[in-house]
């Protein structure tokens, strides 16, 4: 039951129309309808929320205003603050970030026989990977193929992705699932071993593999366990705050900061992988986020300052179904799997207003239109929202389906008295994913030699919109890929002789001359949620 009577009343309308709504197969939008909808209602198209960069390698490009402030911000140190001649850590491959991509990279680098080391500002596994609920795509069924997966991903991303990256994503997908399974990751399977797969928004085949609705958690905890088993050093509560270059401008390590004691440390490495994840905690355009506490775009700042270009940094994913109510879980992710299993999106009048499995950008824009122009949203103390008719899942597939397939969702709402088996839930878009990021080549290398990037921090794989299940896939495929290539490069690279931080002063100067210096200390490291005004 909702604590607010009005919501219980409105939920009854949804219940009354459930039978009729369940029988509906809503029409999918045409390409033109989608284009118009996006241009009118998607947050990426709100020009006044973006700032054109005045300094750095993407000078002239627009990025979200909050990101511009950090990209054109001030380093937390000057070169004089650290002694580069006596590194605290020496390794072959330095991996910044302890999420799915970082852990996968570390395992592959270790497998290749080089010394790998992970630094992470929180704990290993404190990452968006841990929170991925719905699943991971791979075209491994007889009616599917990597080529069909290619078309879905490339089209879903508005034909903007780099073809060679999409090829890698889809052709390495089945192997990624197999690799995880061999590490002991559990997947939902039929008794004969056939994978239980469903649709995601924009998929043309059912290729979403899952481990209930803890898919990312199951993958992440297993990778973490494997990293520890292999004895790979993990330096936790330690953030990278600057990339170190050698005298030839190649990446050669990083300045680290213990985020509890603020002690500065120097790590020297032959190659460096940035795997720091996304940026949801920058709350672009004031949106709530489904992201991890540490998702503050650090890797974009680290890379940008040493000259690594960004690609599609102006495109973000607003997951259509963030929690719209209650306040305690406002913005928390309601997995797309809820719709994969058959729940439909319904407005205040109980009408199904769209096909539930359009791509995420289209679905988010459609929900925003329903709540604004059409004024068919449900008003709560937190703003407008639409219904996601979860009881429809059991109406279609029988009792027990929700507990078996989406137990995390049942638990999350259950804590606030809402039984998603019996009552529909309220949803509204939440800031979920950074579609773009550091520009990478097929080997995960950035524009800076010996500097690699993998996972959400990298751009170009998903174009301007990512499909459900292609991100968990991306972190595994490209995390491993970065580990393999960075390890191979490290084998051919001598220990860097002279380390420098000259880029800090150089970038400061460029900022000053451009007049765009924000003065904000960056990378941000953690959001500032403590209430200060009393």
């Amino acid at each position, binding site marked *: 039951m909702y604590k607010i009577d009005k919501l219980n009343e409105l939920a009854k309308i949804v219940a009354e129309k459930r039978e009729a709504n369940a029988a509906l197969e809503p029409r999918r939008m045409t*390409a033109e309808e989608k284009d118009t909808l996006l241009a009118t209602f998607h947050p990426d198209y709100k020009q006044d929320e973006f700032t054109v960069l005045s300094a750095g390698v993407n000078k002239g490009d627009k990025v979200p205003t909050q990101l511009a402030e950090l990209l054109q911000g001030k380093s937390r140190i000057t070169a004089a603050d650290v002694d580069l001649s006596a590194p605290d850590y020496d390794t072959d491959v330095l991996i910044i970030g302890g999420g799915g991509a970082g852990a996968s990279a570390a395992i592959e680098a270790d497998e290749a026989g080089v010394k790998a080391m992970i630094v992470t500002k*929180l704990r290993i596994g404190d990452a968006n990977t841990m929170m991925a609920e719905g699943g991971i795509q*791979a075209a491994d069924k007889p009616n599917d193929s990597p080529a069909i997966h290619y078309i879905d991903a490339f089209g879903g991303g508005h034909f903007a992705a780099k073809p060679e990256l999409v090829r890698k994503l889809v052709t390495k997908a089945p192997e990624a699932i197999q690799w995880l*399974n061999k*590490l002991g990751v559990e997947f939902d399977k*039929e008794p004969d071993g056939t994978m239980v797969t469903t649709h995601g928004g924009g998929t043309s085949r059912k290729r979403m593999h899952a481990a209930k609705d803890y898919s990312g958690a199951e993958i992440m905890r297993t990778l973490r366990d494997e990293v520890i088993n292999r004895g790979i050093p993990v330096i936790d509560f330690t953030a990278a705050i600057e990339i170190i270059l050698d005298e030839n401008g190649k990446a050669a390590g990083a300045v680290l900061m213990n985020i509890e004691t603020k002690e500065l440390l120097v790590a020297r490495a032959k190659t460096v992988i940035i795997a720091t994840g996304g940026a949801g905690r920058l709350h672009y355009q004031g949106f709530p986020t489904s992201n991890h506490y540490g998702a503050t775009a650090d890797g974009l700042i680290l890379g940008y300052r040493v000259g690594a270009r960004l690609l599609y940094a102006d495109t973000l994913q607003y997951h259509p179904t963030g929690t719209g109510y209650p306040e305690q879980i406002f913005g*928390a992710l309601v997995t797309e799997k809820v719709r994969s299993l058959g729940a439909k999106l319904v407005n205040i009048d109980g009408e199904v207003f769209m096909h539930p499995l359009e791509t995420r950008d289209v679905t988010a824009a459609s929900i925003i239109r329903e709540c604004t122009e059409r004024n068919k949203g449900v008003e709560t103390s937190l703003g407008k929202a639409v219904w996601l008719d979860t009881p429809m899942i059991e109406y279609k597939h029988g009792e027990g389906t929700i507990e078996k397939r989406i137990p995390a969702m049942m638990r999350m709402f259950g804590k606030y008295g809402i039984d998603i088996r019996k009552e529909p839930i309220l949803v509204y878009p939440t800031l979920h994913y950074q579609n773009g990021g550091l520009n990478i080549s097929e080997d995960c290398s950035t524009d800076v030699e010996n500097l690699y990037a993998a996972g959400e921090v990298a751009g170009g794989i998903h174009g301007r919109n990512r499909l459900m299940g292609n991100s968990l896939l991306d972190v595994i495929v490209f995390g491993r890929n970065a580990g393999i290539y960075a390890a191979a490069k490290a084998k051919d690279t001598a220990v860097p002789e002279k380390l420098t931080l000259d880029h800090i002063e150089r970038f400061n100067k460029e900022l000053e001359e451009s007049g765009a210096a924000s003065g904000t200390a960056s990378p941000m490291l953690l959001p500032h949620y*403590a209430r*200060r005004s009393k």
Partner: protein
Amino acid sequence: MENMVNVYLFGKKYQVPAGLTIMTAMEYAGYELVRGCGCRNGFCGACATIYRIKGESALHGCLACQTEVQEGMYVATLPFFPLEKKVYDIEEIKPTEQIMMQLYPEIYSCIGCNACTKACTQELNVMQYIAYAQRGEYEKCAEESFDCVMCGVCSSRCPAGISHPQVAMLARRLNGKYIAPECGHLADRVKEIDEGAFNELIESLMQKPIEEMKELYNNRDIEQ
């Protein structure tokens, strides 16, 4: 005026608005969290917390990000708990009863007090999954423990010194790798890809002009 409640953060009293979670109440009180805060959505186990309501004897385990504050709540977060994780080579071990005896022998010292289950932040039947592990029933142990976020509150309450989340982690990996049925179509597809079965097709897609790709995308068959 907002409806306020009194909570005691590490024993110190603060007035915070009702409806906040323990985590947001700490931030309301002025804490800038570094420890004990992770995904903020109930998946990572970083914000393990123990609380007791003033005047009551029962001790509760919870996740600070998923628990609403109550009047008179005494809160102690548990940002780290020393779990014992044994190191092993997943390729070498096998899903036998012996492996648990070898790696986590303390599970056989369980006295059946059920404190772990009572403390679980995910309402799992922890003692039951340990019983399955004792008997080498790893499939059942994996299923029963599946929603574990490894926060460690169970272990903080265990008189036998068991690191329950690590036992369950081992059981799940054994189950996922060795016990669950193998997937035939996955192995077939990996082989096809290795043999280059899709190279030409994908290469041709990569060469197509965008207009042709749009045609293909907008008119593709969608499985029902």
